[in-house]
């Protein structure tokens, strides 16, 4: 079943035309990976889903509902979480405050909180610390924790491995595997090793267009295609 679909989406930022024609269908369950070179339009795609840029023409539908013109806050309330490229954590707030803000009621569900602590023990260790004092990897963990502290149906994650050490990337991969058992993840990634270990379906964006879409297994097998779509020199 299709959870999210982007239908011939075109997005301008100011006078620049950034996305020309983006159509993808993200099925429910598992990890859907969006690949693409720097500047291809991956972040813009996620921001357009979140209502932070407005596509026109084109549309975004979530569970069959047209959400193109909804306010960002209302899109979030439908059950979509967003982990932006810069993580968007609140540095002046403690870990606890960062997380409690992401709950609907202002109260933690203890089972979910325990799960977050289990996935990312650092969140418990630094519970009352201000978030600016966390390391880069811990900040990323906080950003992901914030996305799962409430039940969501879809999480949009923008390059979570950027600048992280290999050991932390492995921990992240384990966490995503577990999260994807209950929540669909739309993952933007440049780290192909990481992406390939997680993704079931995938698409490649190039210059604001979908250049390829299919299963991860097929894409991994086709070295030539990888070369032409992801290499720096094309």
């Amino acid at each position, binding site marked *: 079943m299709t959870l999210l679909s982007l239908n011939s989406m075109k997005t301008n930022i100011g006078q620049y035309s950034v996305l020309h024609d983006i159509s993808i269908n993200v099925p429910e369950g598992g990890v859907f990976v969006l690949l693409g070179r720097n500047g291809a339009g991956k972040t813009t795609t996620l921001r357009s889903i979140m209502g932070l840029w407005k596509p026109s023409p084109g549309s975004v539908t979530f569970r069959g509902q047209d959400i193109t013109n909804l306010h960002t806050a*209302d899109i*979030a309330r439908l059950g979509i979480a967003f982990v932006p490229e810069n993580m*968007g954590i*609140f540095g002046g*707030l403690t870990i606890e405050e960062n997380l409690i803000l992401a709950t609907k009621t202002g109260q933690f569900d203890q089972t979910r909180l325990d799960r977050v602590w289990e996935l990312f023990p650092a969140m418990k260790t630094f519970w009352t610390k201000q978030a600016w004092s966390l390391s880069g990897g811990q900040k990323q963990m906080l950003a992901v924790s914030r996305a799962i502290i409430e039940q969501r149906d879809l999480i949009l994650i923008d390059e979570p491995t950027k600048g992280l050490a290999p050991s932390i990337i492995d921990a992240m991969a384990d966490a995503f595997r577990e999260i994807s058992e209950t929540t669909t993840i739309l993952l933007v990634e440049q780290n192909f090793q990481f992406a390939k270990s997680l993704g079931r379906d995938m698409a490649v964006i190039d210059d604001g267009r979908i250049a390829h879409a299919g299963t991860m297994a097929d894409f991994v097998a086709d070295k030539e295609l990888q070369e032409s779509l992801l290499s720096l020199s094309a």
Partner: protein
Amino acid sequence: MDQVNKLIERLGGVYLLPVAVSLIALVLIGVPSSWVTLTVAGLAMGMMIFLMASGLSLVFGLMDVLNFGHSAFVSFGAFIAASVLAWLGGWLGSDSIILNSMAILAAFIAAFQFGLAAGWFFETVVIKPVYHDHLRQILITMGALIVAEQMILAIWGGAPMSVPRPSFLEGAFLIGDVAIEIYRVYALILGGLVYIALYLTLNRTRIGLLIRAGVENREMVEALGFRIDRLFVGVFMAGSALAAMGGVMWAGYETLITPALGAEMMIVVFIVVIIGGLGSIEGTLLGAIMVGLVANYVGFLAPKLALASNMILMMVILLWRPNGLKPAVK
């Protein structure tokens, strides 16, 4: 040097600044009794300016809105208070402190209500169309300040208006040879209470948490499912009401007010917000107290420099800390 910095940080960091300034002033003034009087005056003035400025700081922090019309709420607050107090002259002149206080309370309530209503109107009609456009914000809100001044002229006339004060707030009490004006103590206490209330709201409630988070990263708060634009209207209204309250206190302090009050206070209020660092009420309080203290000390030590003292203070502080003393984390 590093160790000195660490020690200063340990002792309270930028919060030491008013202490340091007042100690230097003590040395320069030399007469302890005058110094105490000036310090109390500076703190009281700082508290009143804090009330006027706190809303502006949050409004800018939350929505990047530059509101040069903010001090219109200060002058309306002052004139409304003057009218209410004149109208309740009987209560104000009576021997009963309770009746006196009721008159003052009525002035505060009237100004506060006006601030809420006018804040809502101003946000909806003037500010909303120019979100995300600083140049237009500056032009339109400066225009609004002029319109507000003309409205005050039309309603209250151009002549300076005197503001009656109850007898229990008149005069001074003496501690040894130090005279302390009662009104200043009253302003200090009231300002302190408002600061505590604001501090608790921002740090102990969910709305406060949303405001602090929104000041840091508005987009992310929205991506978590909260309508910052709706929250912003509330913050704008509260900030306007606080400014009107500041106007009430200022009116009682000056006892003679003119329609130019708004434009005069605008400069001070902006300086305070810039010195303090945008978006944080701790910074605003610090900036307001610095401005209050320096204005009083300089006024005594070098009266000719009094007018320039705020500007000089701002330049010195910005050279040292370009983002202000205690900006919100961005």
